[in-house]
């Protein structure tokens, strides 16, 4: 039975790659729920299986055990139109313009052409790229490409947006600006967002809830409700509250790295 209000529900999910003695456990016993309209981040060391988890949530790969429920029903295949993904490297098709990249998924979802074009136009406006609709990806900066990718996700009008380290390749300044942009867009659209990052600051700054994942095999080792009020401002990053939350996540992650040393740190 699905929990009421939960848009995403993950139940004792496990993923093992390969079989026999060469099998690698990527994810182990992962359970969490995300409610409608929540902004939830997942942090963890690189290689811990964050992207694998995202791809399972998206129905792109199958879990080895456990299950994922999206709005109460079990995921077995991609859910176009309900789940949109924003990938790490934007994955815009280089032979299509920004505009065509945004309409491309809508074409797959058999949205009529006039609607496709109207949606693409308004989403590119929303991300501030209306003037760049006719540009090709190679003519755009890294930040602009990610904005097109976000516009592409939003245009599909999904319930859920899964974001896989979308700002990971951007410089610090652009990254912060993109975070602010994303919060503004989220505030306007109130989508449920599942956001993967390895930046603790980014996770805390953006999210309602931060999930912390351990090194491989990835497990959820902490769940932290972020109490900072909204709208979030850049100044909050320097606050004591922010620092404490950051330290807590940092300790949890390092505890996983070296259990003996961590035992002392967590108690102190």
């Amino acid at each position, binding site marked *: 039975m699905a929990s009421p209000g939960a848009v995403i529900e993950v139940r004792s999910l496990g993923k093992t790659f390969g079989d026999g003695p060469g099998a690698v456990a990527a994810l182990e016993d992962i359970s969490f729920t995300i409610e409608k309209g929540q902004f939830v981040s997942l942090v963890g060391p690189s290689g811990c299986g964050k992207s694998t988890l995202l*791809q399972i949530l*998206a*129905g*792109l790969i199958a879990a080895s055990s456990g299950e994922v429920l999206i709005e109460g029903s079990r995921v077995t295949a*991609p859910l*176009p*139109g309900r*789940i*949109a*993904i924003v*990938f790490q*490297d934007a*994955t815009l*098709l*280089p*032979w299509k313009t920004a505009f065509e990249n945004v309409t*491309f*998924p809508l074409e*797959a*979802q058999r949205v009529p052409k006039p609607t496709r074009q109207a949606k693409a136009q308004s989403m590119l406006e929303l991300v501030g790229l209306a003037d760049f609709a006719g540009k*090709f*990806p*190679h*003519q755009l900066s890294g930040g602009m490409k990610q904005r097109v990718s976000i516009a592409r996700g939003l245009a*599909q009008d999904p319930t859920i947006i899964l974001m896989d380290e979308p700002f990971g390749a951007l410089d610090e300044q652009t990254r912060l600006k993109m975070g602010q942009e994303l919060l503004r867009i989220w505030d306007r659209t109130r989508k449920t967002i599942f956001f993967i990052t390895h930046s603790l600051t980014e996770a805390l700054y953006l999210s309602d809830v931060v999930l912390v994942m351990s090194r491989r095999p990835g497990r959820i080792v902490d769940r932290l409700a972020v109490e900072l009020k909204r709208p979030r401002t850049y100044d909050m990053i320097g606050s004591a509250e922010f620092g404490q939350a950051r330290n807590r996540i940092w300790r949890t992650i390092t505890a996983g790295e070296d259990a003996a040393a961590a035992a002392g740190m967590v108690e102190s």
Partner: protein
Amino acid sequence: MRVPVPLMQTVLGALFLGLWQAASSLGWIDPDLLPPLSTVLAAAGKMLADPSFLANAGDTLLRVAAAFLIGAPLAISFGLFAGERVRLQRVISPLFNFVMAVPQSIFLPIFIFLFGIGFPQKVIYGITHVIFVVTVTAMAAVRQVPRSYTLAARSFGWSPAEIYRKIYLPAMAPVIVTGLRLGLIFDIIGVLLAEMYASKSGLGVLIFRWGEAYDTRRTMAVILVVSCATILVNESMRFWEARVGSWRREMDRNG
């Protein structure tokens, strides 16, 4: 001020042709060994109006075209099939490399034992020139399609067949066209070589026959005609390559 590149190229080309003309007409080189450009051009002009020359050219063209039209689709289909199968590629890649390292010309006598010296032998020999390079580039073309494109396309709801058409094909096109261009050039080399070695008709046989007869004027004229034709073919293919791959070149330029 810098001299524009096209101007420099024109000057270089003109210089070469002028030198040729002068060397021969001023007697620096024996005109029987190297006839002047003007004489060769006149011979070429006469040839292009001569039905028997045109028949030979037609035969060569037909062989080249047949080898290409049979070889290229075979190679592309196999390349695409193998490109997605890592294990199969591990098995065949070294074999392909071995075969491609060996000069194909040395196998010509074997082809004559097996297939005689008629049309089929020329076409089969041409096919062997097309098939390897096109297969290898088609396999490379599949491999260079980023997996994230197909993941994204699946999440958008495209079916596997649509992903082939809308993602793989456009992403692979520039590399495949490069392979086709190289395949066509190798094809021409193969067919001409087979014709020069043993044939009853074709441009290769004319070059060989007139060369043997010490008819430098006409030999040079055929060489000139063949050279111009292959340059034209190559440049048209490159134009096509640039069109399907414009996004790719731009990407390289801008990083």
